[in-house]
């Protein structure tokens, strides 16, 4: 007989009286005796009041005290924490700047970057995140919200975008000492192309914003665009260096087309600055010449705001255009380094025009502008907030005259 059979037989023995099965009658009488022995002692009141719920609670709280179950309980707790985090992270991945869970997303990205050790992979990842920022910006722009909230959120998104692009540039500058590193060159190519896309996308989103929001975030947008431009130029620098070092990882035609693309981009910027300046200038002049009394106080305020942004930039756009022309010539001569320098120079001039709020037109100059209806003054609409206080008085005086 094998073990299984023996064990089966042993279990079957239970019902046999000979194997210790008690008689039913005795069981019952014994129960009665036992109950009569234990029942007379009345249970204390507090115990009588106990419901089943209390016992269930006692049982579950007892589980936490058991040594054997402690690791299981800790394991389950850790598992629950992890699950909560994963759930939160997946919800956070869809969050936008200004949302409650957005910091979770940002932290997650920072951790991913910190855990990536290869330079090229790190840059690639950072560039992906820049792509996410652009998506966020696009989504925010489409959202239906009050001007104030929208402006605040867009401003946040644009600032985060600028920050991310800046860190791409910083990283690239740090590692671009070795242009012969083919992997880095590959990433540089990606950055070069993507920054152009990013710039166009930001500009596009900015164009589509409602007028009030547009003005509010203009400065931030401009900063983002110029940072992207700088990062792109740095990336292009790495590509050019690689080409010059004779590694031949990048063909001459490719460098030419990439530099040409940059030049085109800067030219577009110059054209845009000129255009928007002319628009503002013309409107202002028109309003002022129609006369203050005719248009009412609210328009006066508008004029004050707009006029206060008038800045003398003289022939700056022309200078920028000249630099770009030189860059084109140098590109024709295949002198990529110098061409790149000229691009940078031109870009710098344009940036100064856009972002320097200190160049403010004096009252007399505005008066001349109005009298002559001249469009020689270039006005940009990006300095509204920065210069309002400084020039509003001057402008008011002028308007009174």
């Amino acid at each position: 007989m094998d073990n299984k059979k023996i064990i089966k037989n042993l279990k079957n023995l239970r019902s046999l009286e000979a194997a210790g099965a008690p008689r039913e009658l005795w069981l019952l009488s014994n129960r009665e005796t036992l109950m009569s022995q234990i029942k007379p002692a009345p249970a204390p009141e507090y115990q009588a009041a106990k419901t089943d719920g209390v016992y269930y609670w006692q049982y579950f709280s007892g589980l936490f005290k058991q040594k054997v179950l402690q690791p299981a309980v800790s394991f389950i707790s850790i598992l629950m924490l992890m699950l909560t985090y994963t759930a939160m992270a997946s919800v956070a991945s869809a969050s936008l700047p200004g949302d409650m869970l957005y910091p979770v997303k940002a932290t997650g990205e920072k951790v991913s970057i910190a855990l990536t050790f290869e330079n090229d992979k790190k840059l690639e990842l950072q560039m992906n995140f820049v792509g996410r920022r652009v998506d966020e910006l696009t989504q925010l722009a489409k959202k239906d919200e009050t001007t104030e909230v929208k402006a605040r959120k867009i401003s946040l998104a644009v600032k985060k975008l600028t920050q991310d692009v800046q860190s791409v540039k910083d990283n690239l500058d740090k590692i671009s000492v070795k242009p012969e590193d083919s992997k880095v060159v590959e990433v540089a190519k990606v950055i070069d192309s993507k920054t152009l896309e990013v710039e166009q996308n930001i500009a596009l989103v900015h164009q589509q914003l409602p007028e009030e929001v547009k003005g509010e975030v203009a400065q931030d947008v401009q900063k983002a665009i110029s940072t992207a431009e700088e990062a792109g130029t740095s990336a292009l620098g790495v590509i050019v260096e690689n080409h010059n070092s004779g590694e031949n990882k990048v063909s001459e035609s490719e460098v030419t087309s990439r530099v040409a693309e940059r030049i085109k981009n800067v030219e577009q910027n110059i054209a845009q600055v000129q255009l928007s300046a002319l628009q503002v200038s013309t409107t202002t002049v028109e309003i002022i010449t129609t006369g203050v009394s005719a248009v009412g106080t609210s328009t006066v305020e508008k004029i004050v705001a707009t006029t206060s942004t008038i800045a003398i930039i003289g022939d700056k756009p022309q200078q920028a255009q000249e630099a770009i022309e030189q860059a084109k010539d140098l590109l024709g001569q295949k002198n990529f380094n110098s061409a790149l320098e000229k691009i940078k120079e031109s870009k710098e001039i344009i940036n100064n025009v856009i972002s320097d709020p200190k160049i403010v037109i004096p009252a007399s100059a505005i008066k001349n502008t109005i009298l002559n209806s001249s469009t020689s003054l270039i006005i940009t609409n990006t300095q509204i907030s920065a210069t309002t206080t400084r020039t509003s008085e001057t402008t008011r005086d002028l308007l009174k005259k």
Partner: protein
Amino acid sequence: MKNPLAQKILFLKVKNQDPDAYGQFYDLYVKRIYRFIFFKVNSVSDTQDITSEVFLKVWQYLKEGKEVKNLNAFVYLIARNSVVDFFRARQRQAENLQTDGLPEVADKNQDLLGRQILESDLNSTLKGLNNLKDEYREIIVLRFLDELSISEIAEVLNKSKGSVRILLHRALKALKDNVSH
């Protein structure tokens, strides 16, 4: 009781000296404890006396507010001690039975068994069980008839889990030998 959670709750009620719960507890355990004692003393009247005593002792112990960790193992422990007390008392009365004088009792019972059950596998298993030494029989009853876990048996017998496993292995082997001879 099939539902382990319900059983745990019942045990908690028993520990909190709920008489009705203790009644249910009695229903749940009386047959097992009875059998456990029966295999030790091999007399129906003695088994009945000791069984009644065990359930009263457990209740009194709980009434004193003493802590019982594993009620399941605790009832067997009390039963075991009661049997030991029973044999001691007998010894003092200078009767012819000793604590480990079970083989004799078992032999005495052979006729009774023969009368009650047919010659079969079951019969030979029971015979083999009765012919085992006390220590082996006890552990087999605890493990396979009463289905106590190894750790519960260890608690009842005051042994380590390892030695319970070894003992169980030897007991099963001895039973197998008894049955096949």
